[in-house]
């Protein structure tokens, strides 16, 4: 069981309220991702759940039991830190065994569980090394190993992949997802990278300035963002926003259209413009197009190479089914 309920939880540092009272429900076995820009309070929220920070008001319940005043060790949660926080003077084996040793488990039981975790995480050959002798990805796995041996109710990840290079990050993303499928334990994962959120989450919690903007599955957030912030945060490249006359045609203050939902043509279309910078990824090409009469340039995606270059005339046609409409406050209009 790993159900976590936050009721009216808030956090202030001195006079600064970082997290205004919020409610959140995390179900057993769910992979929940907190995502938001830097400084939005997502790490603080995770630390509140972990018990590393005291809540200013409100209540945290784990498995239905009030855990608001419990020390971190008593909450049955395990955490993987951004810096991994491995103990540099201990071997990998001792690092992984540390929580078991603190729990007072007998040596044989400790060894068995460490070997098991090492096998799952491909660390068997490195058990007698020190963290300093490992690569970034291996250290990450040791940190995960240290958290899984305790068989916690839930795992907390605090931006665990931000110190890895792009290729490794993709590999670890898969590994963590696989781990979640195999263990079926609740995982709460903090990141500022919307791609990580989209690829891994069952449920995404989008935060801004400590406020939950929207909670939902990745596709829900992608298809029906409830406001402009979520719309611009989820999806890569960002959604295009158009205001004014063009938006008024659709009875909205602002309309939003994703780069992948615009048809590109060199002959005819709804909006005419000139190509600015183009980004060639091989599979896709992204054009930044200056459309006549629009204040900001529009990003569009074209499949593969379509032979258009800087300065060429281009015509864009948004797919109306995928158009998002927002009112003056930035809220979604159905």
């Amino acid at each position, binding site marked *: 069981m790993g159900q976590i309920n936050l009721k009216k939880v808030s956090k202030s540092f001195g006079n600064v309220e970082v997290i205004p009272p919020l409610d959140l429900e995390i179900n057993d076995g769910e992979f929940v991702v907190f995502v938001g820009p830097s400084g939005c309070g997502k790490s603080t929220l995770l630390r509140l759940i972990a018990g590393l920070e005291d809540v200013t008001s409100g209540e945290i319940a784990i498995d239905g039991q009030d855990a608001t005043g419990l020390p971190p060790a008593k909450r049955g949660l395990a955490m993987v830190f951004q810096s991994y926080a491995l103990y*540099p003077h201990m071997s990998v084996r001792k690092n992984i065994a540390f929580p078991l040793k603190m729990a007072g488990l007998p040596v044989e039981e400790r060894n068995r569980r460490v070997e098991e975790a090492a096998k799952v995480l491909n660390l068997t050959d490195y058990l007698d090394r*020190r963290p300093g002798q490992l690569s970034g990805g291996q250290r990450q796995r040791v940190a995960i190993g240290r958290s899984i041996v305790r068989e916690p109710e839930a795992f907390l990840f605090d931006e665990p992949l931000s110190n890895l290079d792009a290729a490794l990050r993709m590999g670890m993303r898969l590994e963590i997802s696989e781990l979640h499928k195999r263990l079926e334990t609740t995982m709460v994962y903090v990141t500022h990278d919307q791609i990580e959120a989209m690829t891994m989450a069952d449920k995404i919690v989008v935060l801004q300035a400590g406020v939950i903007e929207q909670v939902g599955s990745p596709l829900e957030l992608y298809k029906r963002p409830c406001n402009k912030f979520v719309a611009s945060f989820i999806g890569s490249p960002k959604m295009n926003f158009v205001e004014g006359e063009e938006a008024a045609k659709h009875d909205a203050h602002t309309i939003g259209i994703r780069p992948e939902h615009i048809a590109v043509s060199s002959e005819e279309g709804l909006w005419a413009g000139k190509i600015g910078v183009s980004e060639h990824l091989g599979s896709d090409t992204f054009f930044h197009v200056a459309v006549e009469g629009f204040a900001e340039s529009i990003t569009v995606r074209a499949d593969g190479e379509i032979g258009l270059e800087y300065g060429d005339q281009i015509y864009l046609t948004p797919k109306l089914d995928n158009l998002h409409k927002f009112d003056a406050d930035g809220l979604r209009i159905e």
Partner: protein
Amino acid sequence: MATHHSRSAARLMMAPTVILLLGWMLVPLIMTLYFSFKKYLPLRGGDLGWVGFDNYVRFVTSSSFWPSVATTLFIVGCVLAITVILGILLAMLLDQPMWGQGIVRILVIAPFFVMPTVSALVWKNMFMDPTNGILAHLWRFFGAEPVEWLSQASLQSIVMIVSWQWLPFATLILLTAIQSLDSEQLEASEMDGANHLKRFWYIILPHLGRAITIVVLIQTIFLLSIFAEIFVTTAGAFGTKTLTYLIFQRVLESQNVGLGSAGGVYAIILANLVAIFLMRIVGKNLDT
């Protein structure tokens, strides 16, 4: 300094310093060795010729030699233990956020800036004096007979004075080491279920290993040669004669340069023995 050229240029530029320092060390060492094989009594005839190993034999067979070695080691050992243990505790205390942190830290470091002679005199006259000292007043306040510190507990008194001087040094180095501990490591161990004591034992203490080693090694170098504290308090009486003090007495009080020089060579040997011993115990902390 990657290329062959830049390496040789670097060596050339370092040479003057290296030669100067080497000379600074070698000249006194060779002079000590030279005099240790001579009978040399400045006020009683001066240079009286070579005597072979006579001085060495006389110095070791003197009844005060072994007690002085024991005294030296006792003082060094006690001061090291006191400063390291109290230093760790003080450093952890000072690491806590508190009001007036800056001033408190400066005050803690202050004793290190007091000259050994001055601090020994302050202790002797203001604290340990059996009639006017603060400690005597304190004892009398509780109705006890004042302790004559420097004669009844002479060695302990000197250990106390020297520890007081060196505690700031240990605290300072250990404090900087504690501050460099990654707070996420402490939080991780907290999540792993370690209580305060276990966090200290398994995380903080190993992290301090290297700093403790440095404190122990540096202090040993200076503690082996403490002199002023003994000179102004007991003048070597009441069993406080260290090897350094014995050499001083041989050279200046007995005016026997040859005998003192032989003692100096023994002091070098003792220092090296202690150094080897210490490196065996704590030196591995400096690796990695």
